[in-house]
Every structure is written in C-alpha cells, then in structure tokens.
C-alpha cells in the first residue's frame, strides 16, 4: 500500500503548498506550513529515514513554526499600534 499512501500524501502536500502561498491570511499560512512539515515527517518515516523524520519534526516543523509565528506577532502588534 505504500505507493498509494505516498501518492495521497503528495497530493495533500501539493494542495497545502498552493494554499500556503495563495492565502491572504498570514497566520493561516503558518499553520498550514506546519501541517506541510507534518506531511513531510510522515513521508520521511515511510522512506525508512527516522533520523530525518525526527529532525524535521523538531526543527523543520517545531522551531520554524515558532519563529514564523513570533515574527507575525511582532508585525501584528505594530500594525495594531499604528
């Protein structure tokens, strides 16, 4: 079944990527981006690469999500103040 699972994950990832880029709402895109990271974590796990999966989970999804969100918060707080 691995072929079909990989295919469906790829389709999800492509839809997510289009949504991330075309979305007008920035926080929305960041959440979707973390979902994108989760999808790639599953892919890495399926590809017998648990090390990379773990790294992508903690770094690619966790920390980069935090960094993106905090950047947004910074920009938002300023825009509200303006």
């Amino acid at each position: 079944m691995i072929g079909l699972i990989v295919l469906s994950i790829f389709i999800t990832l492509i839809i997510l990527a289009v949504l991330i880029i075309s979305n007008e709402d920035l926080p929305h895109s960041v959440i979707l981006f973390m979902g994108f990271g989760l999808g790639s974590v599953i892919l890495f796990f399926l590809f017998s690469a648990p090390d990379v999966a773990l790294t992508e989970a903690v770094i690619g999804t966790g920390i980069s999500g935090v960094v993106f969100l905090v950047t947004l918060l910074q920009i938002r707080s300023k825009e509200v103040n303006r």
Partner: protein
Amino acid sequence: MINIKKDISIETLVVSLLVSVMTIMLISLFLNFEVVTSSIGTEIIGINADTTGSANAVTSVVTYFRGFDTLGEVTILFLSIFGIGLGLEGYKDKLNIFAYENQLLKTAVDTLFPLIILFGFYVIIHGHLSPGGGFQGGVIIASAFLLMFLAKNDDFALNHKIMGLIEALSGASFILVGLLGLLIMNRFFDNFLPLGTLGDLFSGGVIPLIYIFVGLKVSAEITALVEYFVRIKDVK
C-alpha cells in the same frame, strides 16, 4: 481564498510558465535515470560495525565519516544566532509578547519541564543506538525552555553568562575532540576510544562524546534563538 483577479498578473504568468517549463524538463530528465546501486553509503554500511561501533549508521556518517560537515553545521547555527542577536539585542526587554496568563499551563510546566529535559538528554545520549542525536535532543531541550517562556512570562529568566559559557565551551570541546584525534590517531575526528560492543550504551568510541557536545551547543543556541524571538519588545 484564491483571488484570481488580484493574484494572477502577467508577471506571475510569465514566471510560472518559465519555472513550469524548467520543471517539466527536470521531470522528464529525472524519470529517466536509474539511481546508482553502489555508493559511498553502501560501502559505509559494509564497514560501519567494525570502524565506528555505532548501531545507527546515520549517526556514524554524521559524527565520524562526515564529522567535519557537522562542525560546519554547528558553526552555521552559532553564526546565525549571533547575527540574530546583533540585530535584535536593541529590542530586548523583560516583557515577552505572550501577554496572557494560563494557570493550567503554569502548574503543568513544573512537572513537564524536567521530563522534557530528561527526554532531550535521552535522545542525545542514545544517538548512536536509535534515531536521534545531538541536534534533535538539543532542540527538544530548547523546546522545554520555550514552554517555560510561554508559561511563566517574566518570572523565568536565563542566566546569560552560564549560557554563553556552555555555548563557548561545548563548541570548543567539540573541536578539541577532533584535535585530540589529530594528535593521537593522526587524523581529525578519528576515534581514540575503545569501540565497545555494538548496541551497548557505552559503545561507539567518541561518537557519544561528540553528540553530547553537539547537543549542549545546539540546546544553548536554540534556546537563545527562541529567547531572542520571544522577548522582542517594541522600544518605543
């Protein structure tokens, strides 16, 4: 969500067309070739058990065969967090941007914090036996500190002197392990400790040692990164 009128301009169309043509060329190219069956990776799998004594071949590539890349990687992390610090230092303030209190989180974090730290060290120390290692464990430790920042706002402060010391010493020790290899075995990062039995916690020669230093450095650095980002406050 997709606003066709606004999103699709001539520029977008041209760029999309060009990149798509490139992609189709790449796809037709990549679909045609066979991945080589014998690579340096397969050779490494063949000799790994005897040369490094690490049960995780990825770890032995990261810390031993391509240990110098890992040094570069640690350097990049160090450098970029240094750069972030240079820029954001001026905005640093005691208040953090999460200006709300969550009593539940506040209570839970006291139990969770040591557990997460413990888990982080577990991942670091078992880097040569199971998936994980210095980078992953280091980031897990840093995430415990992130939780602290979220829960306790101003009540939680890091001692920057100790952080800087950990960072400097672990980075320097990482290089010194390499230099010891150069002095004893005449090759940088070469193993100068007994290998032990494959699969034991105390095995793999210098690999656990290197991963501990990498883990300490990464955790200190990512914690600093998170702190810089979380504690930015408008100066005005």
